[in-house]
């Protein structure tokens, strides 16, 4: 039993260690770490579906968007909502939940959306699924950008309580790890991974690939929705650009560099890319870095992150973990 849950325990320990270190650091480091924890939830949510099924999805940011806007509307001050969004339906305007109560609701909202979108995933795979999920992401982006009554269109929503901290984000990430682990240890998880390895062989053994995929999709959407809600409370303001193709690519970058076929890969990739992105952000902003002074170079971060992804795909296609999970053995050989 301990062997089976080892990846979850070790990933949790890893996240706790990084967060603990960050708590000793200055406020900017803490903020970056909070962002890392949020991205952890989003990439774990995406992993539950993409990692186990092997079907690439660009659409998961749709669930993040639903969770983010849903949470924002549930947790903002009613007075502020009246001012910003006068056309919002009355009950929604008066609704005022705390973050902890709003996040599960956000997850459920995303889950409902995923059920609506599930024919996409169930009927298509391979390239058609990729393109269709991309098309979905773009059309949802257009809707968010124009639905003035609810999302305030391209102006975006401001005044969301930006109260997410390391302490309040951490339990949710740990919960996401538990959910992802529980799914991959479940019999549905095993069957779905069998279909990832060989869909035809799996189907011939009586595995109903579509059924397993829809189970994974629903769970994954829920986790992504929760991550979206956390994202809203991390940012404090939401514009359509926050939940666009950029976020999709960042999530996939983390998953692929870490290793898209394992839970440990999702967690390690998130930590690795977050740290790298933060270092690059500081280089990009320029200024004094101890002995050297740098001029601002916008674009450096994007170039290096893109190179990281490219080199991973070319030289180590399995990512850092190569699809393996963290285990006790690693600790034993490590010491």
């Amino acid at each position, binding site marked *: 039993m301990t062997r089976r849950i080892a990846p979850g325990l070790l990933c949790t320990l890893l996240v706790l260690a990084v967060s603990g270190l960050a708590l000793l650091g200055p406020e900017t480091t803490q903020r970056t770490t909070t962002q890392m924890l949020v991205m952890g939830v989003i990439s774990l949510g995406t992993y539950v579906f993409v990692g186990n099924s092997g079907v690439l999805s660009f659409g998961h940011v749709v669930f993040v968007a639903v969770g983010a806007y849903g949470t924002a509307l549930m947790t903002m001050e009613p007075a502020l909502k009246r001012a910003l969004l006068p056309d919002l339906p009355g009950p929604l305007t008066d609704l005022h939940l705390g973050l902890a109560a709003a996040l599960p609701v956000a997850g459920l909202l995303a889950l409902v959306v995923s059920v609506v979108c599930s*024919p996409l995933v169930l009927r298509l795979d391979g*390239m058609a699924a990729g393109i269709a999920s991309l*098309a979905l992401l773009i059309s949802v982006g257009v809707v968010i950008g124009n639905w003035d009554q609810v999302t305030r269109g391209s102006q975006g929503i401001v005044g969301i309580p930006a109260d997410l901290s390391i302490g309040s984000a951490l339990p949710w990430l740990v919960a996401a790890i538990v959910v992802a682990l529980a799914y991959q240890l479940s019999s549905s998880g095993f069957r779905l991974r069998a279909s990832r390895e060989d869909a035809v062989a799996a189907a011939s053994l009586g595995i109903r690939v579509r059924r397993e995929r829809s189970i994974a999709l629903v769970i994954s959407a829920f986790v992504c929705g929760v991550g979206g809600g956390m994202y809203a409370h991390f940012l404090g303001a939401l514009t359509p650009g926050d939940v666009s193709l950029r976020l999709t690519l960042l999530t996939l970058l983390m998953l*692929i560099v870490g290793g898209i076929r394992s839970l440990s890969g999702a967690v390690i990739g998130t930590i690795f890319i977050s740290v790298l992105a933060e270092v690059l952000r500081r280089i990009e902003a320029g200024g004094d870095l101890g002995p050297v002074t740098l001029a601002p170079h916008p674009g450096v971060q994007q170039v290096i*992150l893109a190179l990281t992804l490219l080199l991973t*795909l*070319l030289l180590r296609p399995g990512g850092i973990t190569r699809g393996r999970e963290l285990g006790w053995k690693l600790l034993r050989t490590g010491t």
Partner: protein
Amino acid sequence: MAQNLVNALSLGSLYALIALGIALLFSIMGLINFAHGELITVGGYALLAFHRLPFAVAAGLVVAVVVAAALLMERLAFRPVRGASGETMLMTSFALSLLIQGGVLLKEGADPQSVDVLGGLGASIDVGGLSVGRLDLAIVGVTAVLLAGLAWFLRATPLGVQMRAAAEDFTMARALGIRADRVVATAFGVSGAFAAVAAVFLVARTGTLTPSMGLSPVLVGFVAIVLGGLGRLWAAAIGAYVLAALSVMLQAYLPGGLAAYRDALVYLGIIVILLFRPHGIAGRPGGVRV
């Protein structure tokens, strides 16, 4: 109505150039090249660099630069992942797209830049009561010539025939002695040339350059391909014209409140088409290979 038709024809030609560049690579090696948009970006900025030269020279140089970029892309990034899964190749093209975009951002900055390449093309001429831009005529004309040229190349030259064979069945074509590297490199070269021409026309139409300018053309290209039928070259061109017509008509006839949602409607339409015809309107369903 006739004015809309002219617009649709001109827009459709531009879309067809972009879609064919992407479809060529997809049909041969199953690659969805997201970085095709960045080839257009590179072409746009190359045009900015050369725009003081005579137009013909500048256009020639732009084509040379973009073709070189496309060949470089193939050699450094796509050759190593050739034969990998479609998803891996797609992510590779995403990485390349981000990389080039970041490079342009680093060199040129994020601010939009404007470039005037129109010259005499800006004027309109009067054809039977219709005002037709010379640019529109140029786009439609050049695209027609390029499409005819590509058709001739694919039908009448040995390399073109090899490319068609590779598009039919890449493994079999290799087994019969077709040199894969040469065929794929040629495809990238042609794709780059089409991207360069598209870039010139696109910049001539809009007059502005940004590092992320390649995104919407490449999406349009994908949509056109899906609409026409995955893996079929000429279907992609047809898809491009259909998409342009749809887009112009929706723009003209959608009631005011819905016009903002035009793109959402177009993309949702794509999803619906994919759901019912996963291989596109004119595509052939392929069985599962075990």
